[in-house]
């Protein structure tokens, strides 16, 4: 349904060119939930923004394809014209964002924000727009939708705002949903309800989901497959169970070791040493993990590891000396 | 060393306009100091034989209705115009800093009283208030300075108050208090120096505004009196001749006035970018 191939994105800033993404590859099958996991600054959100075409002005796609296929259309998201992409956004593929409170227009009633989206993607008569929006509010389990329709974001809790966001994103029944850190800023119990809601809705509508998160534990709970990103590279991608049982990239292994679990003590949590490399650097190492890697060997790791073949049909790793 | 040089060059390259404005500022300052000494003619000597001559090699900016050299008058006026603005800004800066720091630091009633007074000043259109003050206090240059200082007071008091307010409970202030510093000492040595960089931006932007105000007041006949050379008055005197085509009387003092204000505004913008790029608008 979505196949991202060799996607590279650069940001031109005053301080220099930031190579935010390099040859990113991953794919999403219909109805599947794929997690994109990595630290802050690893390029997860940039990937999502690029696919949605809402990248900042300074960002530019320098290479790659993003083939999107739904029941209705088959396009390269990076080649389409702005106006035809606009038809797809919200209709075929949607996105929900972190910080739901700031992601909604602060001075427009939330119900109206949903009808705005419905109006531009459907030919429902005006009278039905409101009904459809109310239906959406009910479907994301918002109590008292009629009253909430007229609420402004500042009057709602973070959890309710995120449900509104979900209703907004799903209003036109997209086939792919990109959820960028949907639970950031919510308290723990709300996180669970929001995630379960997303899971149920995805199952009901047979919608594919890309879950972007820095939380490996969260991804392991909800995703069929996981793509691990580090400093703008995809370092490993595999089905969730094999990724956890048999991580092949040193970074994935460290990430798993750093993930809190109920049975682990605090001392068992292993922090990952070092920092993300400076993506502005002219002499960026071919393997962007090399400065943090225990297994780094200049004789073996001289070239960019991204083109390494798959270890198994559904398990790719970008490393010269996988575990 | 080379990195310092490189950095300096980078900063200058990125802020060309600011450096141009700084050069202009130096030129204005020089003119204010040396103006009377280097002016080619006396600014006050009249000579009806050469009245209302258009710009020529002998009189670059032409001559006015009394045969005085416009260039010389414009040059000599620099000291007065800048002087009024500098004194007014300095006065409001000092008083405003004191009031603002007190209001922000002590809070409570001190803050409420000071803020209420400032709000009352802000309830007037500022130029109108200045005009009323000069009319009430008496028509003199000194009172122009007081009036201009008074209408700038709200700006300084408010900015300093809010800056002090956010820093009042900061770690370094607590530390100073715990090591036995008194309130006044903390305000003078710990709080005030911290808000100074932000204030410099305002001072620069405010200078331009003060010059405009003072010139506006003398344009309507307040403060500076003829035959003193001052930009606002010169424009006012030249106004009569504009409709008969003698444009140079008003144009040159007006243009220099505009340039001076422009210079301070650019300088303020540049400083703002240097000190806090986020404030850039």
């Amino acid at each position: 349904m979505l196949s991202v191939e060799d996607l590279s994105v650069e940001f031109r800033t005053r301080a220099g060119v930031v190579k935010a993404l390099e040859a990113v590859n991953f794919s999403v099958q219909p109805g599947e939930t794929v997690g994109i996991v990595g630290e802050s600054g690893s390029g997860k959100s940039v990937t999502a923004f690029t696919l949605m075409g809402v990248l900042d002005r300074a960002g530019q796609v320098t290479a790659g394809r993003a083939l999107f296929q739904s029941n209705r259309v088959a396009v390269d998201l990076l080649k389409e014209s702005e106006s035809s992409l606009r038809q797809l956004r919200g209709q075929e593929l949607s996105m929900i964002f972190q910080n739901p409170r700031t992601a909604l227009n602060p001075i427009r009633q939330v119900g109206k924000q949903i009808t705005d989206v419905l109006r531009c993607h459907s030919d429902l008569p005006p009278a039905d727009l409101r009904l459809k929006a109310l239906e959406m509010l009910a479907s994301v389990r918002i109590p008292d939708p009629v009253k909430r329709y007229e609420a402004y974001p500042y009057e709602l809790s973070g959890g309710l705002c995120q449900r509104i966001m979900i209703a907004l994103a799903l209003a036109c029944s997209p086939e792919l949903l990109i959820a960028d850190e949907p639970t950031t800023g919510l308290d723990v119990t709300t996180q669970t309800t929001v995630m379960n809601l997303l899971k149920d809705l995805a199952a009901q509508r047979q919608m594919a989901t890309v879950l972007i998160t820095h939380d490996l534990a969260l991804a392991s709970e909800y995703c069929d497959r996981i793509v691990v990103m580090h400093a703008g590279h995809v370092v490993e991608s595999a089905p969730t169970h094999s990724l956890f049982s048999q991580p092949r990239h040193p970074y994935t292994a460290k990430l798993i070791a750093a993930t809190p679990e109920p049975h682990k003590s605090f001392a068992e949590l292993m922090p990952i040493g070092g920092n993300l490399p400076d993506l502005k650097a002219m002499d960026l190492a071919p393997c962007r993990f090399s400065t943090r890697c225990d297994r780094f060997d200049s004789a073996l790791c001289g070239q960019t590891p991204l083109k390494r073949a798959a270890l198994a049909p559904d398990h790719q790793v970008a490393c010269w000396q996988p575990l | 060393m080379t990195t310092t040089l490189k950095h300096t060059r980078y900063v200058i390259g990125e802020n060309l306009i600011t450096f141009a404005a700084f050069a202009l500022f130096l030129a204005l300052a020089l003119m204010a100091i040396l103006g009377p000494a280097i002016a080619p003619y006396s600014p006050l000597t009249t000579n009806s034989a050469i009245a209302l001559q258009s710009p020529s090699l002998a009189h670059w900016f032409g001559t006015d209705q009394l045969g005085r050299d416009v260039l010389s008058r414009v040059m000599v006026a620099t000291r007065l115009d800048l002087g009024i603005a500098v004194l007014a800004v300095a006065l409001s800066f000092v008083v405003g800093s004191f009031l603002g720091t007190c209001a922000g630091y002590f809070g409570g009633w001190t803050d409420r009283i000071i803020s209420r007074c400032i709000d009352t000043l802000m309830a007037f259109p500022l130029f109108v208030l200045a005009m009323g003050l000069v009319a009430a206090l008496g028509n003199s240059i000194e009172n122009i300075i007081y009036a201009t200082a008074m209408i700038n007071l709200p700006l300084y008091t408010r900015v300093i108050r809010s800056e002090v307010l956010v820093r009042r409970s900061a770690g370094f202030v607590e530390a100073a208090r715990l090591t036995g510093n008194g309130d006044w000492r903390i305000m003078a040595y710990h709080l005030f120096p911290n808000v100074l960089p932000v204030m410099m931006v305002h001072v620069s932007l405010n200078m331009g505004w003060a010059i405009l105000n003072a010139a506006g007041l003398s344009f309507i006949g307040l403060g500076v009196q003829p035959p003193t050379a001052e930009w606002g008055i010169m424009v006012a005197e030249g106004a009569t001749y504009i409709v008969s085509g003698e444009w140079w009387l008003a144009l040159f003092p007006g243009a220099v006035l505009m340039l001076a204000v422009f210079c301070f505004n650019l300088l303020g913008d540049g400083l703002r970018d240097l000190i806090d790029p986020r404030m850039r608008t």
Partner: protein
Amino acid sequence: MAKPSTSQIVTQRILAALPSVIGVVIVTFLLTRALPGDPAAFFAGPAATAAAIEEVRRNLGLDKSLLEQFFLYVGDLFRGDLGVSLITGQTVVYDLMTRLPASLELTLAGLVLAIALAVPLGVLAATRPNSWIDHGIRLLATAGVSLPTFFTGLFLIYLLYYRLGVVPAPLGRLNILYSAPPQITGFYLVDSLLSGNLGLFGAAAAQLFLPAVTLGLFALAPLTRVTRASMLGMLSSDFIRTARASGLPPRQVLFGYAFRNALLPIVTTLGIVFSFLLGANILVEKVFAWPGIGSYAVEALVASDYAPIQGFILTMALLYVVLNLLIDLLYVVIDPRAGVES
């Protein structure tokens, strides 16, 4: 969360403006009574005899205590008595009321011109950050705020009247060939239209054009700046990204979402802009011989006629308080959050 009703918010805003009014009255009172010189001499004017000064002193109650004087002053205000002008021989209130429409028409025309130019320019600059258009507009805005209004006015007169002859002589609201329209609103543009006199409308508009442009240029700079800055902030905000990611058409994103939000800081800035405009108004009226309250005050100033000056300052301050109140109410209309946090 109990949401206050609109009428509650409006009442609350009006009450909040009251201290300003009281402050304004106190300051105007103090301006005249707590002077270094003799207030009676001020009010009697420069040509008054000792006997006339004494009479003024008694009439104004200047021989009483300051507090008593204040209440007398407030009483006079409530009766609408601001004294008599020495130059016109009329009551100050009459003079101000007959001249106020001229000033308001000019100020509003200047403001409308400024907004009509500043908002598109600011939006244009914000949608193309760091382009040459943006830099040009930024420079223009800085230059605009550096322009002395009286100088701009004179320069425009020289260029458009003396050189090109495309505007009528800068002498008031109407060419002497025309007579004023019947007084309805006091705004010549409106009144001439209401009485269906298009020729008169044209003549009034021609006279108004140059002073309004002069005034507008001055207000242009702060408005452009704040439009650009707040549009820029809105365009990079999260909810705009949501709107774009939902496939809303660019026009709706730009105007319906970004601009509506960007309006809030713009409306707030209007307060400062009015402060500028009302001040600059005095200078522009003098330059264009515009028969408003500003030129009235300047004439009084030259003649040391004190009562009109005092009345003028009070009128301007009250006008400004009312304008600020209107701005506040406008804000309440645009922003649903207004009135909740306070």
